[in-house]
């Protein structure tokens, strides 16, 4: 298995949020975490990023349990799209270049052609690259952030509400592109019915019977 959640419990300030959650994710899986706001979808994504530590249980990536010593190395295997980003003092080009200024990503700096190719797949106009992040719409910002994650060419994509700001046409473009990437593993948190339907695995956080798949 690529990723295993083993008997994971999450809680905040002594109050349990999720208890005894176990599921596996294989390479190429497209997994949707489903549930109401506050049900723990983002928290589960953040167990993978290391920003949420389970109160019990463990998360294994390539059979390696994440801990404070290896979390930085594990993070280099994922790309993470938060529900919202700001980066208001960046222009789009600067924002897309930002992850490649990090020492971990310097060797995989993409060329403009690759960026433009992804822009086309996701329905973004090429001229947007010269705009500031403040001037683009919410839907454009969400797709630009997705482009930045895809440029990292990681095997695992963590997407928090990836189509929440998109209109139907843009949503279809994004879904068609992402779900056609067979080798890409996607773990997503989403309210969107269309998105959830396209995923091959769905974990409903209110239905423990859906946890073991």
């Amino acid at each position, binding site marked *: 298995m690529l990723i295993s959640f083993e008997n994971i419990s999450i809680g905040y300030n002594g109050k349990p949020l999720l208890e005894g959650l176990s599921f596996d994710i294989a390479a190429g899986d497209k997994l949707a975490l489903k549930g109401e706001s506050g049900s723990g979808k983002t928290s589960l994504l953040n167990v993978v990023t290391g920003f949420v530590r389970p109160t019990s249980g463990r998360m294994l990536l390539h059979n390696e349990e994440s801990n404070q010593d290896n*979390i930085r190395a594990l993070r280099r295997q*994922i*790309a993470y799209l*938060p529900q919202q*980003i700001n980066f208001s*003092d960046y222009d789009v080009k600067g924002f897309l270049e930002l*992850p490649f200024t990090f*020492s971990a*990503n310097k060797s995989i700096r993409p060329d403009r052609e690759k960026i433009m190719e992804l822009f086309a797949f996701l329905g973004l106009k090429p001229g947007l690259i010269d705009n500031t992040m403040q001037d683009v719409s919410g839907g454009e910002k969400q797709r630009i952030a997705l482009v930045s994650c895809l440029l990292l060419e990681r095997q695992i994509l963590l997407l928090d509400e990836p189509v929440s700001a998109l209109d139907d046409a843009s949503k279809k473009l994004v879904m068609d592109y992402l779900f056609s990437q067979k080798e890409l593993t996607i773990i997503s948190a989403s309210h969107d019915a269309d998105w959830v339907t396209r995923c091959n695995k769905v974990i409903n956080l209110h239905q423990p019977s859906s946890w073991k798949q």
Partner: protein
Amino acid sequence: METIDISWGNLFLGYLLLGIPLWAFWYYHTGLVRETIVAAARMTVQLFLMGLYLTVLFDLNNAWINLLWLIIMIGVGTGTTLRRSELHWRKFIIPVTVGSLISILIVDAFFLGIVLRLDNVFDARYFITISGMIMGNSMKHNIIALNVFYKTLSRNKQDYKYCIANGATRREALQPFMRQALKLAFNPQIATMAVMGLIALPGTLTGQIIGGSSPDTAIKYQILLMLAIFVACMITILITINMANRTLFDEWDDFEKF
């Protein structure tokens, strides 16, 4: 050349000028009338007290007493910085104190020891006045930088997480926030430097000329003081933020409320 003293009566005339802004505050219902009167009264009392203790300090001119004065001022400055930037006292008291102390020691050693070549760098006339000026200014900019850095970071935690989860080290993920803090803290100072002598006559220069120094000497002091303040601000900010960050983040690069 003797400096013309200001009589008590004439000093009172100066206060009468304050009537103009007070009238404007009252007329536009700003609610600032009382605050302005209290501030002017506080300024008067504090400056007279300062006159008294400076006279005593200059008469004593004792290195240990001057150092003690510096430590007290750093303590007061740290308290003001933490109160104004609304940061957690327990988490920031040491970084702010150490940042202020190191910056003042480095800049004082350079300015008083190397540039002015004083036989006694703790000479009250130079050590206290120049340290005070540098400290006051660097505190002002430190407050801005701390405010911008930690408030922006808290407000935009998603941006920080985006960077960390996508491969950034903590230092790399904090760079956008540091850049913004430095820009906002230093932009006014850079603008002031750029127009100095054109649209503004700086305080040290004016004071020295009124006090009888030649314009040449006054200008040299002004330039060096501006540079010393600029450098001290940068050292204070860099030490404070970098030292604080060592304890504010956990091993997972996560942080709690500042």
